[in-house]
């Protein structure tokens, strides 16, 4: 074994050096020769290219990482708000409960008139950057009729969005809404109602028809001449067909009346709402209305005298369409005539009583 041999060799070397010092010629000490083997990691040693490739791979990976994390891949949009509401960079933009973007920067406007929020959209959320999209800062809302955004009391604020119509053109500048909308659906129709008196209605209040929320008040303001209160409301889903000529809007508020009894008591606690009664006959699509100061009489007995919705596009599936589609044409003309006569009679009686 090499071990024993080596020790022998060493002993010889030492002998040569120290004990045979009296000899005349000094021979070179006899060192052992190193053992030659096959290099087990020979592959690494043989190829220079392997190492250069390794370095190149490192460089490539570093560049890739640098590129993907510094060059943003989504679109940048700007939303203008009057108030930042504690929003800060890195807060999320959420749609349908998931994050589709991130606030990149918040700047105060040069004229101090508001803040500009830059939002970097994720590639899959870029579709919300179209005209008509509504943005708001989600924050706690607590009132008798409404409680929302409670997760933002402790947690981070976030931006919410309702995308505009699907065929709207792309846009990158938006005006944010100050209040979170109550109805988280995209609106099809926006109507403008002019009232002599605002009666305390405010943005965020509901639009109800037969006690069901069909829309939302999005804006309340005085007109240019301080002559009217302009109430802008969004109607959603099928309710958009209610925006037609002859539809009456009024602000529902508590009222004690001998004829109708006590009504609108729920608005004492639940807040005011905008009520509407559609035109009983076919009307044309319309988006501007004069608001009524008091509710029309017997409005709850209202029956459609013809199929409503014809004024608006036909793509909306309503039950009447489905029925006629199956070939069972409902011939309700006589019934309508009878109802119309009854209604006229009632109105005549009303007049007589008054």
């Amino acid at each position: 074994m090499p071990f024993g041999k080596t020790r022998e060799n060493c002993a010889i070397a030492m002998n040569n050096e120290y004990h045979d010092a009296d000899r005349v010629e000094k021979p070179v000490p006899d060192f052992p020769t190193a053992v030659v083997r096959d290099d087990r990691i020979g592959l690494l040693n043989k190829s220079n290219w392997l190492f250069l490739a390794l370095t190149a791979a490192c460089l490539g990976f570093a560049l890739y990482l640098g590129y993907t994390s510094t060059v943003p891949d989504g679109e940048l949009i700007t939303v203008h708000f009057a108030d930042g509401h504690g929003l800060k960079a890195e807060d999320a933009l959420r749609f349908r409960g998931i994050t589709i973007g991130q606030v990149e920067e918040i700047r105060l406007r040069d004229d101090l008139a508001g803040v500009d929020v830059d939002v970097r959209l994720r590639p899959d959320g870029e579709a919300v950057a179209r005209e008509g999209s509504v943005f708001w800062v989600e924050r706690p809302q607590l009132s008798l009729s409404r409680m929302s955004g409670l997760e933002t009391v402790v947690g981070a604020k976030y931006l919410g969005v309702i995308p505009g119509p699907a065929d709207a053109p792309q846009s990158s500048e938006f005006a944010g809404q100050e209040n979170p909308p109550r109805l988280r659906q995209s609106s099809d129709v926006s109507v403008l109602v002019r009232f002599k008196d605002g009666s305390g209605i405010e943005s965020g209040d509901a639009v109800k028809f037969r006690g069901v929320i069909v829309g939302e008040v999005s804006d309340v303001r005085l007109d240019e001449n301080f002559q009217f209160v302009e109430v802008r409301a969004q109607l959603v889903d099928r309710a958009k067909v209610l925006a037609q000529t002859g539809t009456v809007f009024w602000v529902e508020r508590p009222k004690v009346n001998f004829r109708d009894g006590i009504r609108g008591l729920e608005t004492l606690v639940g807040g005011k709402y905008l009520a509407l009664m559609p035109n009983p006959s076919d009307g044309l699509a319309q988006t501007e209305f004069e608001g009524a100061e008091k509710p029309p009489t017997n409005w709850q007995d209202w029956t459609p005298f013809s199929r409503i919705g014809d004024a608006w596009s036909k793509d909306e599936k309503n039950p009447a369409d489905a029925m006629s589609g199956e070939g069972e044409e409902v011939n309700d003309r006589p019934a309508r005539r009878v109802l119309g006569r009854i209604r006229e009679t009632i109105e005549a009686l009303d007049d007589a009583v008054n």
Partner: protein
Amino acid sequence: MSGFKACHCCGLVHRMPTLGIGKVAVCSRCDTPIHRQRAAGKSTLPTAAAALGAFILFWPAILLPILDIERLGHHHESSIVTGTIQLISEGSWFVGFVVLLFSIIFPLLKIMMLLELSVLGLFHRKHRAVTYRLMESAGKWSMMDVLLLAFLVMLIKVGSLVQFQVGPAIFAFVLCVAMSMLASLMFDPHAIWEDA
């Protein structure tokens, strides 16, 4: 290759036989490889390549976000550098400087010295010994791998309290640690005086 070489493990001096390509001379007493014959090029090339790779990966590893912590909806992204700066600015001087020294400065120093020894050769030959000794001692204190371990421990321990995701820098960091280890593993001190 003739001449004598001492085994750097047990110190026994050997006569060097002529080596063919892909052969390695090992110590006759303790089996430690003393000298290996490469096909072509400087014998420092593997070290140089690995050290260069580590040097390239070092920058994304410390500059890009390594952790994305989310607590109660608040996002916080931090890289090693910003995290260290934050530690120091928040008054944790000791911890901040420990991280700065042992996770940023020493590893960088080690990688750069390996590069200098294996490929650059900026210093005079007689200073190389100093550089080598400095590299050896700096290498002992470069603790990127320890930091990596700390991250792993944190992932397991704090994972249930806050939500967090690792950022892109973690991959660069792991690779950088591996490359710098590879470089120092393959570094042959004899090669310093081989040429010139």
